[in-house]
């Protein structure tokens, strides 16, 4: 937070001097704007903040931020960021990645960062396509997607990224949408306050290779009917007048409720011990149900880096040994 040595930072102070080079109209611009807004709101210190990315359009992100930045290699950002964070837990470490980077080539690092609960904020820009390599289907593209590498439609089934993060033990799992700037900024602020891995999936429009991927959700005319804002402690309601809701049946299947049944709408608890409600929302069909945004899950759990630091401190308290003694440990003998 603000101190006397550091005058308050404005949003523009988080912008680097590099020209932003995404395609005009790309959803990445609004995400960049939301991140800068959130950082200004949180008064993040530039020198304490590190942004680490992999490869892809989204991974150009660090160049546009006046913080420390490391644009690494495809898929490995969570692994590199783990080393950064463990070596210096004081740093505020962010990972910026995409659906190809995090879910395909880097899938292993993504799930293991979640499993360990390393203190990283992972922003995954999901445009459901490979943009940088000019338009192949990605692991989040819908089945049947026609692209340059799938002229007859892709045969692959897509991941549900939120479900994957939940399954991997994610302790903070959320979703935002590029064009819902204020909500996204708020979600990023909340992610920043989490201890442990905070994962935010961000629906992002690639207007060049997958334009309109989220049109059916985000168009002004349908938005109210199609987006469900998750609010802790509030029932799952949506629609302009909050006149529709989501309830769960006895098999934990979601069902739509309205009218006299509206009272059965499930009261959202993002801190629920069981991941089942979050999983049910993460996997429900986008065609039948609205798209939930906001925080799916938030659980407190000791972080990986805290555990590492604690073990080392305990080891140092238990045993002090000079280098000489270390080398001479065990059986030694003298020759005169």
């Amino acid at each position: 937070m603000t101190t006397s040595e550091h005058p308050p930072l404005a949003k523009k102070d988080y912008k680097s001097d590099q020209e932003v080079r995404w395609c005009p109209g790309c959803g990445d611009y609004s995400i960049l704007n939301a991140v800068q807004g959130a950082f200004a709101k949180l008064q993040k210190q530039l020198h304490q903040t590190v942004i680490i990315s992999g490869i892809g359009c989204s991974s150009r992100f660090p160049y546009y931020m006046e913080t420390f930045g490391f644009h690494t290699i495809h898929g490995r950002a969570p692994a590199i960021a783990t080393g950064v964070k463990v070596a210096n837990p004081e740093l505020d470490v962010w990972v910026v990645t995409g659906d190809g980077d995090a879910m395909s080539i880097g899938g292993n690092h993504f799930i293991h960062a979640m499993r360990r609960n390393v203190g990283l904020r992972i922003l995954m820009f999901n445009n459901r396509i490979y943009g940088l390599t000019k338009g192949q289907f990605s692991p989040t593209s819908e089945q049947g997607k026609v692209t340059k590498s799938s002229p007859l439609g892709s045969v692959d089934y897509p991941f549900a990224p939120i479900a994957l993060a939940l399954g991997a033990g994610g302790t903070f799992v959320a979703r935002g949408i590029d064009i819902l700037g204020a909500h996204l900024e708020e979600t990023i602020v909340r992610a920043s306050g989490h201890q442990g891995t905070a994962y935010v999936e961000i629906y992002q429009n690639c207007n060049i290779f997958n334009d309109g991927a989220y049109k059916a959700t985000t168009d002004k005319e349908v938005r109210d009917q199609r987006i469900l804002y998750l609010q802790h402690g509030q029932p799952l309601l949506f629609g302009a007048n909050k006149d529709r809701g989501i309830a769960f049946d006895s098999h934990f299947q979601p069902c739509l409720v309205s009218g006299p049944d509206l009272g059965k709408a499930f009261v959202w608890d993002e801190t629920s011990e069981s991941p089942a409600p979050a999983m049910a929302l993460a996997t429900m069909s986008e065609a039948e149900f609205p798209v939930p945004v906001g925080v799916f899950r938030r659980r407190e759990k000791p972080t990986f880096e805290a555990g590492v630091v604690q073990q080392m401190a305990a080891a140092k308290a238990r045993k002090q040994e000079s280098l000489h003694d270390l080398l001479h440990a065990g059986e030694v003998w003298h020759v005169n």
Partner: protein
Amino acid sequence: MHTDPTSNAPQKGLQDLDQVVIRFAGDSGDGMQLTGDQFTRTTALMGNDIATFPDFPAEIRAPAGTVPGVSAFQLRFSSFDIHTPGDAPDVLVAMNPAALKVHLKELKKDGVLLLNTASFGALDLKKAKYDKDPRSDGTLSGWRVIEVDLEARTREALASSPLDNRGKDRCKNMYALGILYWMFHRDVAPTEKAIADKFKKKPEIVEANLLAMKAGYAYAETTEVFQTAYRVSPAPMRPGTYRNIQGNQALSLGLVAASKRANLPIFLGSYPITPASDILHQLSSYKHHGVTTFQAEDEIAAVASAIGASYSGQLGVTSTSGPGMALKAEAIGLAVMAELPLVILNVQRAGPSTGMPTKTQQADLMQAMYGRNGECPVAVLAASTPGDAFEVAYEAVRIAVKYMLPVIVLSDGYIANGSEPWLLPDVDRLPPIEVKFAPPSSDGSKFQPYQRDPATLARPWARPGTPGLMHRIGGIEKKDGTGNICYDADNHAHMVATRAKKVANIADDLPPLTTFGPRTGDVLVLGWGSPRGAITAATQRLQQQGHRISCAFLRHLNPLPKDLEALLRGFKQVVLPELNSGQLAMLLRARFLIDVQSYSQVDGQPFKSHDLEAHLTQVLAASKEVK
């Protein structure tokens, strides 16, 4: 019973020898490695020079009693300076027919065969693929055979032990060890202490093991089968304090020593792999020295996390073997581009692919030199003995932080698991390692992450968290100085040349090469890595025969020492023995246009010094003919 051998042995003959080679061979479950290890420690403590060669079967345990399940441990000890664990053993301890089958052919003629007869039933013979009992068909003639039913003897000795028969049988290796301790006039006290420490929480196991050892000792002392004990006097060694050390231990200690001297914490990112895992095990027990170990989800995450730690301002290290190196290649390229210090330990094993994980080889040299996309030079060092591995690890850290680049250290399975007495260094005399982090900046100017030190060309090490140093780096080509993305043709050519020059500059620091023998002559035997011992032994014998032959060893493979070319040109012929198909020989031929002759062996085994000597004798003869 007496534990001082000198008080017992004179009752029988005592003969002096200057060296002995013993090989313990048995089933994987017979404890041969532990037995060999105990004999080694004892012998080192008694002042002999010693060299060892554990030869493991494949990691997955083959069925008991079969040939693929045989595990062996060879050791050689002497009253003079030795360089190898020896070629053919003088004494073979064979715990079962399979061990006999595998190892008998290498036992010296007239050598002693201590044969456990407990498992010579028809089924045991069949498992070892013997049609007939080798004890009765003349197979064993020509050797001094001592047959002992180790199981029966051990069970007798442990009659009062609470252990069941299975537990008792597991002590039979200690019975055999006791016999050898008597035969070779060894002190049993170090083993008593070691076993008591090892099984601290299981007193009945300690008691049984020690009882078995003492019973074996007493058996050898009293039965008529053993007529003579042998004595090998201590070797003259350089004065100082010694301990026994294995290569993986030495690499770990070298890293910690460098970390302490540089005041730079170590972060090891690693994924378990044979034969490098011991480095991960060992370093994970050094948390009190500020070492962080991270067992990553895969080899790539292992190196990636190490790069992240270096970026944060610790010393990133990753340890692996060949298949893991292949997976790390792209990330090593990132460290080259980002110009971050990184130490990569490759304990080589027989490849390609999975190959033979427990067998040794030096075939990853080209991979270390060139196994990355683009023009991607790194420093490459090689350890040549277990003790040398300490210095090499230390040197790797010095180079990595001074020049801000990755350093690959090549060891191999033979160095990793072999052991030798190690003259402990004086910690105050270890060369200083200076680490300079870029200082905070408050003048508001843009920090230049690629502004280089004019002498070394190293870029500043700018830790996140330092006010005023915010900057962006990455694997994408960048403008020298600013570090901004740059696809400019001239800049790329300049950056490729600069990264190469940085590696080349390391040669400015290197001491001149030392040679064993004069710096000119008929033949120079040049070596790198683990063949050092065999090369030294062969060269010394040929020198004693009056030949003009010398040998020299390369610790630095990239860059090469500046005086190497002149040294090579001082000899009529240069022979380069390596456990690959001639990789360094090819590099040197290409680099210097000198006719370096490769002597290659790629069978998963170390060189035998006698094979080398025979080859070099031919080379020397040819060189005479040329004259």
